[in-house]
């Protein structure tokens, strides 16, 4: 029946949710692009905006990293296109291969080179009204290559729309440990919580294909990352707690705890703590 594909996907997700033998996404133990934060998750055609990638090469030992970036209109990711701009007629180079100099010892985790893009003015020309209202995706790709050939690649969407009230990034999260703001590396298992301003969860209208509108409210999700120790959960919803297990022998400066809050509409904010 029509529910079958969804059922199968959920069933296999259920099977896969106990993959204890696999590495966890929250553990920054290899070359990683943690997040690409945009200045504006929703823009109009012709707008200019910036992107800030957050990177980690925790176990890279300070090897040389080269970054490059492109931008283009969505090639059709939802329908199977690879998330690259390689074959796109709207492809723009945002960053030619450039050595990353912003990551430093001992954690080699932090921000990368900032990118700037101007959205094509014709981005929405010829598109149906519901697409213009809900937004068309503009894609930014970012690629890191280490000196030994190891690669990491990521992409970030922003929505190009005619909406007058645009989506905003959620407020920067405050990481709280047992109710107080995190100020040092916990030495014992500790419940952490990402707290964002209540206004971060915005309400908006989604235009259906028939032209009618459906009210929706954002759900704020936090993704957690650590370089040492571990987290019980990779993601939490709202102000849900997450147990942090500290490393048994922490090395000063190598302990990073990151919370990335995302609103599901290309908006995100990041809080990075290094101890």
């Amino acid at each position, binding site marked *: 029946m029509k*529910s079958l594909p969804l059922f199968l996907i959920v069933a296999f*997700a259920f099977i896969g949710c106990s*993959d204890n033998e696999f590495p966890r996404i929250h553990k920054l133990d290899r070359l990683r692009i943690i997040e690409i934060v945009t200045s504006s998750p929703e823009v109009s055609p012709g707008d200019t905006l910036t992107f800030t990638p957050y990177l980690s090469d925790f176990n890279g030992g300070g090897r040389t990293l080269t970054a490059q970036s492109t931008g283009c209109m969505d090639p059709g990711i939802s329908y*199977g296109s690879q998330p690259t701009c390689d074959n796109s007629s709207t492809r723009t180079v945002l960053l030619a291969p450039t050595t990353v100099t912003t990551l430093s010892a001992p954690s080699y985790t932090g921000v990368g080179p900032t990118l700037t893009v101007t959205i094509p003015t014709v981005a929405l020309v010829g598109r149906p009204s519901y697409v213009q209202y809900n937004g068309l995706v503009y894609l930014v790709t970012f690629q890191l290559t280490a000196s030994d050939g190891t690669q990491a690649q990521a*992409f970030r969407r922003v929505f190009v729309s005619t909406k007058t009230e645009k989506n905003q990034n959620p407020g920067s999260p405050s990481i709280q440990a047992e109710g107080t703001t995190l100020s040092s590396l916990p030495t014992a298992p500790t419940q952490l919580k990402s707290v964002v301003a209540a206004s971060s969860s915005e309400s908006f209208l989604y235009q259906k294909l028939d032209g009618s509108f459906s009210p929706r409210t954002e759900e704020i999700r936090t993704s957690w990352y650590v370089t040492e120790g571990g987290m019980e959960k990779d993601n939490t919803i709202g102000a849900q707690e997450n147990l942090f297990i500290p490393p048994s022998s922490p090395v000063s400066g190598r302990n990073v705890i990151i919370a990335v809050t*995302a609103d599901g509409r290309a908006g995100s904010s990041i809080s990075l703590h290094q101890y």
Partner: protein
Amino acid sequence: MKLLVLCLLIFSHASMASDLEKTSVERHLETRRVTGYLRESGTSRPIAAAAIHLLPIKLKAVTNSEGLFVFDTVPFGNFSYVVQLPDHLKAEGIVDINSNTTDLKVYLEKKSYSVFETTVVGKGHRDDSRKTLQAQTIAVLPGAGGDPVKAVQNLPGVNRVGGFSSQIVIQGSAPQDTKYLLDEHEVPNVFHFGGLTSVIMPEAVGQIDYYSAGYGAFYGRALGGQIGLMSRDPERDLWKSLLFADTAKAGAMIEGPVTKQSSFLMGGRYSYIGEVLKSVLKDNKEFDLTVVPTFYDVTSTYSFKNDQDHFKVLGLYSHDELGFLFKEPVRTDPAIRGSFSNQTDFYRVIPQWKKRISESLKSDLSFGFGQDWVNVDVGEQYFRLSSYSLTVRGEVEKTFEVASPLKTWKSRWGFDNKYQHSKVSLRLPPFFTDGGVNNPISSAETTEADIFSKYSHLGSYWINDIKIQNWNIAPELRGDYFSQTKQLLFSPRFHLKYFSSDFLHQYFSVGRYYQAPQPQESSAEYGNPQVKAPHAWHFSLGQNIDFRKGSMDGVEWDSKLFLKTFSDLVITSAKTIERNGELVSEKFSNDGRGRAYGIENLLKVTLNPWLFWLSYTYSKSTRWQPARDELPYQYDQTHNINLIGSIDLPSNWKISSRMRYVSGNPSTPVVGATYDSDNDVFVPIRGPIYSERLDSFFQTDLRVDKKWIYDTAILWVYLDIQNVTNKKNSEAIRYSYDYQKKADITGLPVFPTLGVRGEF
């Protein structure tokens, strides 16, 4: 004087002797009319045309169609009765005939109550694309758990599907290319939740028909084939009931005569496997079962039959429900979080009327009315369907008397229509999968829509069956109109058969087949309203040999070559196109092509009490897409072997086993992944599509049946163990978050089912 005395003595003695003799004769001459019935032990079915003997007086009576017999004049006394029939144990006993003698009740026990019925190839309207499993076969096939649809997996040409799949894949076609029929009317689904068991009570099914390459024009709208469940008529002779329970479900059924010409059946099943799962998972840290997996179904049949008319109404209601709560988002795809619930219901009411107007003229008319409901919620995503469905079939069959050399010419005209009115509300992303590797749900854009749709699928056919000497020629034509795509399409089909003898025939079939696109593919809101109906050509060539030549034991062999070519297959498209002056995502296109070919064999060896059944299929199934070479299809299974063996043992024991070997399904390597920073997931980068294979599948199933036969009841206990060797078969591959590590998802471990049933 002496003489006088002597005469008196003689007279007196003679008179006394005469009196004595008269009493004895009178006693012997006193007789009684004895009536009785002969029935089969356990089932209480009347046994007709059987001789019952009274010894030593050598009286004989023969039972009528209701199993009744009469001895008109039986003298008083003690006699032995004896009944002896083939396939039955000898019944004998002592009966005392006197003035108080009442009816004689005789029960005859069959030698075996688990007869492994044969597969009938081409019966009724002879169609060599069809293989039929009878109900008795289904009940005892190892690994099928008594389920009629799962039993089909033992037939050649049926691809193995694994995991939670609840579909049948026929000869390398796609799962959606198989249509499911109940009494020849389409039903939306044949399996309950996760393919555990079919939606209809197996005991209400008389037979299941499996139609593959080259099937006739009576059916249509399916590129792959058809699975047809045929209900049986309820018991006409006596009321019977059935109770059963196994480790997953329990049920009951009752049936019997309403009048001399009509009968009724009603049964239902309820599954409690969810309660078992809930207790197993109660301490799970990752999710709660909020609604335990539950299914139930109700089946009812009413039948009226006389010499001219057969009227039947079949009713079926099916319900499935499942719900759970993810305590945290799924690690590999955080979009899957919160609560998940899935509820599926449907019912069908199928009135049918067959009329024999004359020896050479028959007509059929039937309807299938019903509703379907599907509600799926995953966090904030949902899919809700409510639809009404009406299917109508009608047929007139005329047999013409023709001059030699033609023997007969039978012609059938009919229609086969389907009307559906649906309302769908959805908030879902499209699910993209390629090469068997899924993209995360998170990475696709969500579409929200309320869709109202009405469509009519109108079909009509003309079937001819001409017999000329040893030849059987069947030219057929079917026309279909799909309102969905606004296409009127004609499908010529042709069947040729040559009978070398009563035990050997060869057959050839060719035909064209169309199928409407899936509703989501042609939806203006969710798909592409410009997609058209995909189509296929089928060719098959085979021969059937019965080496038994009339005897019970021996070998039967059916072998068939098949070829299917597919065109205009609907595939996903990432292109942006101009439609009605607007730039839109194409989403789906008709750019797919494919073919499947192979040879299938079914060999049956009967050596009473042994029976062996070997089905072997060699096949290749491939697909083309733009900018891609010919690639293996998802269910390209080179070798598919099923070996079943069974033995009937004394005292109604039966042991059977099934061994299955199937080549591993094609798989696609993942060579990298791109991080989707919006959704905290990785999107896989696929290597050469279907350039690798999963390990071959091998499984052994074992089944033991024991029946206790009483005069009016049967108690039946069985143990059905799937995967008795606990082989860890790879069904799919799961990956780490960044696709750098992978592991197999294995299929069912050893899975025993213990069941008990009583028939009264």
